């Protein structure tokens, strides 16, 4: 494979490219969805292809094809060079890339049981049992749902700077959820978390480690209980978030705004920009002093985290970077190009593409709120009056990542240090630095959540990322009922 790629790189250089990289990617994915006892989706997807990224006259060109042979590679390289030449006609500033050392390596994620080797029948049996368990919990269950996806990626990277990297990645995840309905009210409960479940870079052993049927029983019961719960009250109060909701809060209000491409305006037209402008680096009080948010995708520390990897799609080794240190905004997620633009010596390895037919963009990897020293129960015991919210139900945030609104699946009224009453339709709203500035307790129940569906870019790319988070408390937060 590398020989074929190296020849294409040579061809690009002969055509005047000053830099060229080629990625060949082979993908397999399996998706199973069960709804109310029926197999709603049972799909295997396979594809392979290559993408060629070229710098010529200081501008980028990219082209790709699903046909991997020498003739097509040559054609695609030629087109990519032409596209770069066309880009250069409307470029003001030539692209410069931060240096990177030449890498020759092969790495893989740590799966034990290849999910694609597990008989389809066995998977189905487990998922159908979970689905049935959900629906057994009450007559109000309108839908029991199980969703599962596994993916296997084999990729090769070659650059004109001499790097040759091969990677084999396997990840999978599963989730159960219940929809209940009564008198026009609909409630949803999902575990381990919402929107398809939790994902990890492991094999089928992860699915086996979850007691899916037990989770199914819980979602059926809790979704039924929610129907008779009171609506969340309105007003400013103390808010405690469970770690899965906090993971999404980190994702939207810290992960996205610290992407250097957003900061430099290159995602302005679609996803938006960022309030974390370069003049604020090292100065802005992003949160309270106990808030430390770090990008650390190194597979040595958390090999099973969905967002961990050894090298990004520019061939850059990942580098641990604090985005927020003791409450102060201190760092960005970088590419080689944005590192130069923002005055950093090197990239920290945040560039990934979701497939062979897409260019790498700055994507979140493993971005975590470092744990505190509170036990989650202590946080509740220490709260006189407040609301505890659990598991995301809806989200929205503005283009600069300041004004956000999140809805959760369920909440508890906290009174005198105890969870008193179940509440439904809870929503909270805030402005990012104010919200994090009011964080006064972080739990030690650190857990890494895997999100397989973060969208960004045009054409849109769906990336797999993860966030470590714990139970945490925030003062003076506006809450209300989403009803």
């Amino acid at each position, binding site marked *: 494979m590398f020989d074929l790629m190296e020849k294409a790189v040579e061809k690009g250089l002969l055509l005047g490219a000053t830099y060229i990289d080629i990625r060949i990617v082979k993908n397999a994915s399996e998706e199973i969805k069960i709804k109310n*006892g*029926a*197999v709603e989706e*049972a*799909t*295997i*997807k*396979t*594809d*392979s*292809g290559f993408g060629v990224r070229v710098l010529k006259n200081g*501008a*980028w060109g*990219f082209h*790709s*094809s*699903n046909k991997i042979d020498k003739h097509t590679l040559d054609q695609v390289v030629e087109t*990519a060079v*032409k596209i770069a*030449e*066309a*880009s250069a*006609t*409307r*470029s*003001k*500033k030539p692209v410069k890339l931060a240096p990177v050392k030449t890498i020759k390596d092969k790495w893989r994620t740590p799966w034990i049981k290849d999910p694609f080797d597990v008989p*389809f029948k066995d998977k*189905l049996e487990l998922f*159908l049992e979970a689905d049935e368990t959900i629906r057994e919990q009450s007559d109000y269950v*309108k839908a029991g749902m199980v969703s599962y996806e596994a993916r296997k990626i084999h990729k090769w990277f070659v650059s004109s700077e001499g790097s040759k990297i091969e990677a084999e990645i396997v990840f999978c995840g599963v989730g159960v959820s219940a*929809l209940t*309905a009564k008198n026009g009210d*609909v409630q949803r409960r999902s575990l381990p978390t919402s929107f398809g479940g939790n994902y990890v870079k492991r094999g089928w052993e992860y699915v086996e480690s979850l007691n899916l049927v037990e989770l199914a029983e819980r979602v059926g019961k809790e979704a039924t209980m929610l129907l008779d719960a009171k609506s969340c009250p309105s007003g400013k109060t103390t808010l405690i978030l469970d770690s899965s909701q906090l993971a999404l809060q980190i994702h939207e209000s810290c992960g996205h705004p610290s992407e250097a491409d957003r900061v430099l*305006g*290159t*995602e*302005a*037209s*679609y996803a*938006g920009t960022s309030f974390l402008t370069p003049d604020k680096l090292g100065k802005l009080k992003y949160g309270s002093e106990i808030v430390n948010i770090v990008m650390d995708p190194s597979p040595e520390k958390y090999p099973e985290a969905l967002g961990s990897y050894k090298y990004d799609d520019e061939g850059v080794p990942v580098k641990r970077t604090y985005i927020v240190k003791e409450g102060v905004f201190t760092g960005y997620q970088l590419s080689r190009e944005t590192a130069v633009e923002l005055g950093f010596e090197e990239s920290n390895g945040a560039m990934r593409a979701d497939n062979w037919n897409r*260019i790498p963009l700055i994507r979140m990897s493993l971005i975590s709120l470092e744990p505190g020293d509170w036990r989650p129960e202590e946080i509740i015991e220490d709260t006189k009056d407040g609301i505890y919210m659990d598991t995301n139900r*809806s*989200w*929205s*945030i*503005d*283009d*600069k990542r*300041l*004004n956000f*609104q999140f*809805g959760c699946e369920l909440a508890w009224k906290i009174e005198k240090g105890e969870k008193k009453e179940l509440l439904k*339709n809870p*929503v909270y*709203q805030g402005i990012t630095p104010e919200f994090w500035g009011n964080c006064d307790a972080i739990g030690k129940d650190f857990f890494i959540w895997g999100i397989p569906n973060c969208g960004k870019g*045009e*054409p849109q790319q769906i990336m797999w990322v993860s966030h470590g988070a714990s139970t945490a408390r925030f003062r003076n937060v506006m809450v209300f009922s*989403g*009803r």
Partner: protein
Amino acid sequence: MKELDEIKSWIIDTAQTVIKHVIENGAWQADVRIEYGENYLTRFANSQIHQNVGETYTKAFLRVFLRDKRFGCVTIISRDIDEILKAADQALKIAKASKPDLFFKSLPEPDRILPTDRKMFFEEMIRLTPFDRAEVVGKVIDAAHEAGKHVSAVNGALSTVLRLQAIANSLGVNVFQAYSFASLNVLVTAKNMQSEAEGFAYRVSGNLKEISAEEVGFEAGERASSGLDAKKIEPGDYEVVFLPYATATLMFHLAIDTSARSKDLGVSSLINKENKKVLHEDISVVDDPRSEKTPVPLLFDGEGVPKRRLVLFDHGVFKNFVYDSYYAGKEGKKSTGHASFWRHASPFPSNLVFEPGNSKFDDLIEDTKNGILVSRLHYSNTVDPRRGIITAMTRAGTFKIENGELKYSIKNMRFTDSYHRILNSLSILGKDFRSMVVRRGFITAPSIKVNSVKFVGTTG
């Protein structure tokens, strides 16, 4: 063209070969969608091209059903017939290991495709070079900068798309269509010493030639320039004039609710509302591939079912959910021709048109005493699906309207409200309309003036 003719023959023949193969190997019914595509996208930011990408692909999606209603699906990106047949065997294997889905009744029978006199495929779109796209982008950038001295950055994307699609099933469906379209979105940033503002404009057409790059650039540039020095106003209940770009977002949420899948899941706000007045009586919404207002007429859906005009709302009365063969079979109905292209059982409108009115845009402003002009909505999401409650931020041009006049620019605001309530408070329908690409279809919507939207927050 010769190459595309060969591709056309190849995908039509391959579709037939695949169906024959799976039926011979034990499938009761089967269908396959094969698409050849050429997509190019030139992105620009900070007034220069920064990403410029292209792809060609051949993709197939195959479903096989056994007589006892077990089924399996495969998707493969390949132009190799052996690989596609291998994937077809895998679909059979999945089906054999699966459990029956007794809600599935049958794939659709062949039906006559209604002709269209509109052109779907423009040959000049094939001949576009990267330099042609760069030239269009250049015109956008120049026009936006000419719109105001404070314009600091022109951002956006120009996309050109060619698709050749063949669909076949074991009951005799065997259809082909080819279409092209170009879309251009532009977001301009203006800056002065005190503030920063954005302006947005968007166009989509079957032919890039029909899009005036200068007009789009100027529109976004002008709006950005007039948005500087925004003031903050208190959240509350305001009258609102939505530009078509913002109305289209409301229509997207409405479209989700019209899907038979949303109904089946119990998460549509339109459940039990068929033939009931749901929206203001001046609101009529159709899904009509032959409407002159939709940019690209799609002849059939992802199952090869002919697309016909379907009334979704008639003078505010909700008339129809949209169905594919799965949900139609489940409810004992006929498919309305809204099957998804790449997913099993996920119907969605593809040529949705919110019928415009007769009023000039100025009439909408003049009708507003204490209101807000919303140019675009950002990051909208559902808060309570059964009640149609959504939340979104305003973006790229939010202005205060007082006593019938546009007064000043305001900071972006968040609303959380039911789109039913918003659209029930309609006051005037504009005659201007725009179309946007949504999922694999198009939404067309006019400017509207409504009497009440609940804003719950402000940025900055």
